[in-house]
């Protein structure tokens, strides 16, 4: 059980870091939409349209770190199985 929680902790950290890096390593807040810009050919105005997209930020990393720490902390609640000495 102890090892299971430690593995969960490590998996959470690695998964969160992987998702964060793969989605562009956003160092700001998590975004639920991203602005897409397109220029109007006649007026030259650059319009902004928001597309729904999850882009995790530093708050996502912090939340994942907290969850990983809770898993790691919980692992200490379980004792290692002692082998009986003959």
């Amino acid at each position, binding site marked *: 059980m102890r090892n299971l929680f430690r593995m969960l902790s490590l998996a959470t950290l690695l998964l969160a870091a992987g998702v964060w890096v793969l989605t562009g390593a956003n160092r*700001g*807040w*998590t*975004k*639920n*939409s*991203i*602005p897409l810009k*397109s220029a*109007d050919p*006649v*007026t*030259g*105005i*650059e*319009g*902004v*349209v*928001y597309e729904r997209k999850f*882009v995790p930020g530093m708050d996502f990393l912090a939340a994942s770190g907290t969850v990983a720490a809770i898993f790691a902390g919980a692992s200490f609640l379980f004792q290692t199985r002692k082998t009986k000495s003959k």
Partner: protein
Amino acid sequence: MIPSLNKMKTNVFSVAALAALTLSAVAAPQSFDFKDPKGVNNAAFKLDAPLEAISGSANGITGKILFDPEKPADTRGKIVIASSSITVPNAMMNSHLHGEKWIHAAKYPELSFEVKALRNLKTSGDVTTGEAVGSFTCKDVSKELIIPVKLSYLKDKLGNRVPNMKGDLLVIRSNFTIKRSEFNINPGQAEDKVSDEIELALSIAGAAAR
């Protein structure tokens, strides 16, 4: 002889009246409608606080401007931004932004800028630059602002943008700064994360159909 002279007089008057009407139609200011069917018109904003930078935009723009390319100084009108269209990329931040402490979009559905005069104008071709004197209103607080403006008059270009329509376009661009504390937007609070100064960049096109 006399009847033909009378007929000639009538013709001369008719032509003169028609010319006068045409001239008055050309000289009269055109009303440009800024409700953009393509949804491209937007007001972008940026807040650069010591701890955080926030940027977003609003595209719910309406309003009408009376503009005469021969007399740009006579430009008048009002541009309105729907508070509900103000958007930032973070959903939670967006909901806070529209809440009571900040924009309070439910109670104050509009922000507006009413143009009262244009001054210090320089015209080069179809482009006029200068300053707009007007009243900026946000959360029922109105303040007179003088903002730099650039107006591009695109004659007969409406058809290029909206098929099957004839008319002119007026593109207005302006970059200016307001202080949220002056417009009752959560004044004095969280200035380390949400700066007092809001940089606004207005890029809008209005259409005058014929």
